[in-house]
């Protein structure tokens, strides 16, 4: 393996970059959410403090559970996310392919949900099992729309699946969000990533007030710290994916830097607004919403994309 791959994976644009940016953006989320509720909100370093403090706490392992699976799950999820971040980042920052295309990313993103289910259910806790069941259902709910959303850029680029080629086509022909089909797909995609990050109104698997964090209930100490970190890494990965698919990626020359930051902030702010203005929905409502409303809408976008609109 090429040694520079290690730099890509571990420092930039992979693990370290994603983690730090994720935790920082997590602060924006917490701060803005606090302002929504007329609170002051935490200082900038709060997420970092939380992470390191959790690392120092003891890990409580359920005796009768499957210990290895329980402990491995958060780290496998973490490793997968770090790799996805590297894949997307390489295309965005270096315009290079890196061992995977859009189809690979679609499948790798499922690993995160799988690990939540396996890790949670390994304890034998009833709340974790309920949460695990909901996690899979939520995955099913948003996956159908998400597939359609991912297909729209593929079609618009003349059936390309490589990330760097998707960017290249957008650089030549203009960004996909500028077309009708691209815009509809982007909006649906935004809702899908809301569900993929299990943010309100789709925080059904965790549902603190009802099933006490569900799959994460028995987690504590460093494994919990990594679950939290994973969550914040999703704040980078999924918006970056949307930027890549619909907004033509980043351009770091001159005024482009400002645009790049604005694109990212726009998506984050939209996510935070949706998050703070909606109550939690039931799992069957979420299924209904995605299968009966979001999916047909995304399908219309797909038809428009085939017709070239």
């Amino acid at each position, binding site marked *: 393996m090429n040694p520079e791959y290690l730099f890509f994976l571990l420092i930039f644009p992979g693990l370290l970059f994603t983690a730090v940016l994720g935790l920082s953006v997590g602060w924006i989320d917490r701060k803005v959410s606090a302002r929504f509720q007329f609170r002051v909100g935490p200082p900038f370093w709060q997420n970092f403090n939380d992470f390191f403090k959790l690392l120092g706490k003891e890990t409580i392992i*359920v*005796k009768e559970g499957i210990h290895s699976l329980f402990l491995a799950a958060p780290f496998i999820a*973490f490793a997968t996310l770090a790799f996805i971040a590297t894949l997307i980042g390489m295309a965005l920052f270096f315009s290079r392919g890196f061992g995977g295309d859009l189809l690979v990313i679609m499948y790798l993103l499922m690993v995160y949900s799988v690990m939540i289910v396996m890790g949670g259910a390994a304890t*034998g806790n009833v709340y974790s099992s309920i949460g*695990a069941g909901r996690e899979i*259902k939520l995955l099913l709910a948003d996956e159908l729309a998400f597939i359609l959303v991912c297909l729209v850029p593929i079609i618009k680029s*003349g059936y390309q699946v490589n990330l760097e080629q998707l960017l290249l086509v957008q650089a030549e022909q203009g960004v996909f969000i500028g077309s009708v089909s691209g815009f509809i797909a982007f909006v649906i995609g935004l809702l899908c990533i809301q569900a993929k990050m299990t943010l309100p109104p789709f925080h059904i698997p965790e549902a603190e007030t009802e099933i006490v964090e569900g799959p994460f209930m028995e987690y504590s100490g460093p494994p919990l710290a990594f679950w939290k970190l994973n969550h914040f890494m999703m704040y980078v990965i999924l918006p970056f994916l949307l930027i890549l698919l619909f907004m033509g990626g980043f351009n770091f020359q001159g005024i482009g830097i400002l645009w790049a930051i604005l694109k990212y902030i726009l998506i984050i702010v939209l996510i935070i607004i949706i998050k703070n203005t909606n109550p939690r929905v039931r799992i069957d409502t979420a299924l209904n919403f995605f299968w009966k409303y979001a999916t047909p809408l995304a399908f219309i976008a797909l038809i428009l994309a*085939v017709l070239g609109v």
Partner: protein
Amino acid sequence: MDASLILIYLVAVPLGIAALNSLVPPLLQKVFTFFGLAYTIVLIYYLFLEPAASLSYMDLTLFTVDRLGLFVLAFIQLLSFIILIFSLHGLDKANEKKFLLLYPLTVAVCNGVIISENILLFIIFWGLSGLALYLFALLGQTADTPKTAKKTFIIIGGSDVFLIFGLVAMRFLQPGTNWSLFGLHITLNCELAWAAFISLLIAAFAKAGGFPLHTWVPDFSKDAPVESAAFLPASLDKLLGIYLLARMMTILFEINVTMHLVIVTLGALTVIFAVMMAMIQHNGRKLLGYHAVSQVGYMIIGIGSGCVLAFAGGLFHLVNHTIYKSNLFLALGSVEKQTGSNDLDELGGLGKKMPLTFIMAIIGAFSISGIPPFNGFFSKWMIYQGLLEMARDLTPAQQIWLLICLILAVFGSALTLASFLKFLHAIFLGKRPAKYNRIREAGINQWLATGLLSALCILFGLFALQIPLQKLIYPVLVESGYPIPEFLGTYNPLLVLGLVTIAFLVGIIVYLATKNVRYDENYLGGMPALEKYRITGTGFYNEIRNMRPLQQFYNAAEKKYFDIYDLGSRFTFSLSGLFQKGHPGQLQLYVLYILIGVLVFMMLIR
């Protein structure tokens, strides 16, 4: 060794062992079968060294093996051998003798199907393989066994009629081929050609378990011995059915784009219909049976699409499926042999008691759901790319049609993942019922077999390009005159696994550096962890089961409205019921019948 001799041995050796096995006790049966099947693997190795082997008698070519045949033969031997390892210990005592007699017999017949070039031999071997299936179905121990065996026999036997008709019709469409299967090449331009094409399609679908002729697979999986479920519907019958389909697509027929799209649609329907049924099953074997059907859909899509990349992907998916599905059946079989149950509602929390079986089941489940870097993902990835590549040259309406099929296929694999998370949860995760506290790990032969299959899952996933594709599948393409396909996207499984492992190690190092562990009981907010709070996982998808349009679909499916066998038998019985009503036993009525008959007769000959 002489190549034509190898061909005879491939059928004769297992057949001879079957004959020997009818005389000796089970222990010797196992020894004979083990060494016999090991020998056939050696034979396959010799065949690989030969460019082409064939055997003629007078001026008839009886047996030929080309690259496609060799590819299928190799996996027939490999799978039979591994499943035999599983069967070495722990077979059902009552049926052990019969099972070990049938086992080499089935291998012989299946080898016969693949190497037959003569149409009549092909039909005979194909029919015998259906008979073997029926005999295996009879070995089951459940109450539904006779019904299932009958159903299997009627669907498979009935489809044989179509096979015979199709092949004979082709022979008449193209006379002068001297009953050689490989010499036929038909363009679909007349009614007879269409009839032949559809007949062969029916035969291939019934054997492989494609929609709507799939209904015997879940029932067979539930009622037959678990080894035979892994052996026949999961591996050998898939190989045979898809072999026929691949033959049809490469040499037998020339078909147009619309027909390709129709076949792809049938494949997509198979995927989605079967996986929706699998999700709501409460019986582990039936769940796997429905997945054995749904995975056929991907092969049908790949092979029927007419795109080289998807065709190669379809063939690759065929072998991947045989590997991971027999792995899953055998893993479930191990659990069943330890606990005595395959009911997902009863099992639970066995992951701690049967860790090796659990790991194998996870590998199988991840492979079938297409999680990178396991083998299932690579073949699905190839098929999807093939469809995308195909869509480029189509009209917008055809593109949308094809894309709908693609969406169903991709979503089908998310549903597969969901279904298998339920499967894993119900058997290995969650809270363990107290009665399973003394369960032990499966026997060494059992986890050795599942372990070998799991190793193949990983090997074929990581070295997909180097081993299965370049060594086995690309020669098939070259032989059929196709170009070697170029991938649309990029996927480097070794890099994915390598980098994910490195990132995983980083996480683990942080954990180990800060580790401070305490062991404790489950926390339920102060409530005791009673048995009644146990979640099995079978109810995970009740919301989907009860969703509006799906509810009606599921209710109809449970009343067997989509089961072609059940519909057929209902029709037959209603017809015979009609005739029964006409037989009240009154003499006057029969006299009337006779009179009417005579009248009709007289009018006819007037």
